[in-house]
């Protein structure tokens, strides 16, 4: 992973903005799907596919590639859009999302679409698969890194803690997990539905090394992953604080946008296309103007 310069940051932020546009467009075309999570994770996906990951879009099954396991499959629009922008398949194909015959299933299907490492959707199962991959690479003395992206809501699932315990036991230092800490799940705020805090202390108690970052700041994202690689003897959990729906003010912070596409959300008073167009217009152009809105 090369050092990140200011012009690299600007390029990544512009790329993220283009990917957010694609996410909105594909969800509008699909008429169903999740909006808040994909927009919130766009900066992290962009940083990974355009800077961090060892991968080759023209050779998706390259043996040397790092593995990125998406555990919360419902945010797949951001993965699909990022893969398309990275060159895995044509960007136009994004508009087939959730349509009959499409490679872009409502939740990802391994083998159907290049770049997808596992089928996911039923929550909680990604971390254990990443653990299995990390064990396999360690057995074969291979250097591939394994990354797992999870949602915060799926920490409700018991299986997550089975996998967490095992990764801690085995000290899987080739495994780095990013948790999208956006504080929302379908029925409401995570702390109302099933309180997760103190999340950091919980992971640490399971023998993980924990980092906390602003999930919209390219520099901190990249630096955290670099730091994670320097941690031996422990798997690393990066708690990425993100804004659900990031980039579209109407959607930001509102859990009611968790599982709805533009046009079918809680403020739905106008037709989908109109609402979608408005949201596209509202999408803030970061354009490298600032490194992060939090600064």
């Amino acid at each position: 992973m090369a050092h990140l310069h200011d012009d690299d940051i600007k390029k990544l932020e512009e790329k993220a903005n283009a990917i957010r546009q694609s996410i909105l467009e594909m969800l509008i075309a699909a008429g169903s799907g999740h909006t808040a999570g994909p927009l919130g994770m766009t900066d992290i996906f962009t940083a990974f596919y355009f800077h961090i990951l060892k991968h080759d879009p023209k050779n998706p099954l390259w043996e040397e590639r790092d593995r990125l396991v998406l555990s919360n499959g419902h945010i797949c629009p951001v993965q699909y859009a990022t893969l398309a922008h990275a060159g895995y398949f044509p960007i136009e194909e994004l508009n087939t999302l959730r349509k009959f015959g499409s490679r872009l299933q409502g939740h990802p299907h391994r083998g159907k679409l290049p770049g997808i490492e596992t089928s996911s959707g039923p929550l909680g199962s990604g971390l254990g698969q990443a653990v299995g991959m990390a064990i396999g690479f360690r057995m074969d003395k291979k250097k591939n890194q394994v990354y797992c992206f999870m949602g915060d809501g799926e920490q409700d699932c018991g299986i997550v803690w089975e996998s967490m315990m095992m990764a801690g036991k085995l000290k899987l230092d080739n495994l780095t997990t990013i948790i999208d800490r956006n504080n929302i799940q379908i029925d409401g705020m995570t702390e109302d539905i099933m309180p997760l805090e103190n999340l950091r202390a919980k992971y640490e108690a399971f023998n993980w090394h924990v980092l906390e970052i602003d999930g919209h700041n390219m520099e901190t994202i990249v630096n955290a992953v670099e730091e994670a690689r320097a941690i031996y003897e422990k798997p690393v959990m990066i708690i990425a604080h993100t804004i659900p729906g990031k980039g579209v003010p109407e959607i930001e912070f509102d859990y009611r946008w968790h599982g709805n596409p533009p046009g079918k959300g809680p403020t739905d008073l106008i037709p989908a296309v109109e609402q979608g167009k408005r949201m596209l217009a509202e999408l803030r152009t970061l354009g490298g103007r600032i490194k992060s809105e939090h600064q």
Partner: protein
Amino acid sequence: MPINPNQKLVENVLDLKTVEQAPTRKGFGEGLLEIGEKDPRVVGLCADLTESTQMYLFAKKFPDRFIEMGIGEQNMAVVASGLASVGKIPYITSYAMFSPGRNWEQIRTTICYNNVPVKIIGSHSGVSVGPDGATHQAIEDIAITRAIPNITVIAPCDMHEGKKAAIAAASIDGPVYIRYTREKTPILTTIDTPFEVGEAEVLFDSNLAARPLSSGPAAKSTIDIAIIGCGPLVHNALLAAGELEKEGIKVRVINNHTIKPMDEATIIQAAKDAGAIVTVEEHQVHGGMGSAIAEVLAKNYPVPIEFIGVQNRFGESGEPNELIEAFGMGVSHIKDAVKRVILRKK
């Protein structure tokens, strides 16, 4: 003799007093050890039941390829999926009640939908688990696995077949479920008995008593009934056949060890030759091997069928043989079912 000589069964197969006995899971332990030696991609995972699933043989020989999961069957399924996706052939073991019982969704999504070569080994299936009682007696496992696309489902009849199935599973490029049992049961086959996944075997046929195999198939079948079984109860089917033949009823017994994909040709031929079928399995009659046969025959060649198995109830504590009798899966129950179904022929 009506015993098919090509099957190379043990000579005293019909003599319950002298036939040797061993649990089918013993065959798994030996089979995994053998395939583990041949194929370095094979890895073993177990959820805190290393000895009773017979995984310990592999774990002792290949400690670097054995992964202790603790009591986490769901995690075991997904970790195995991850291992398979980076080139391993994982065998995951627990009691059938917990795997594929407890972790069914993880098996469906991360193993079968991904179509990766994880081998799911469920020991302690059936009521013959015995004293542990209903909580530990898996009698729904065939139904829940065979409903999933991409998976192969096998129920070996004895220790030798259990070993062959464990070895054969490694060369199947996809998920496999193999159903093993806890209790000692008759060893009816030998190491020379043919075993191919997806090929049912005729073990017993009354036609053979009158005609040597070398004279070719009979021009017109003279059997009255075909008994199709899987798992250790195939031996009860053979004992029933031996007794029925003495009563003048001509019987064919088929060992249908592979429930999915089903050997449809052999099953349909049996229905044509006999005109009636009895299915035998230590499983709920709903959704099991018998149901799978009914699906094949309803579509291709409908005949009356009687289903020997657990009749829509939970298991309970008891001695294995006592439970087999109490749940209506003994030799006398098979004979009664044969007589009932023959009367239903048109």
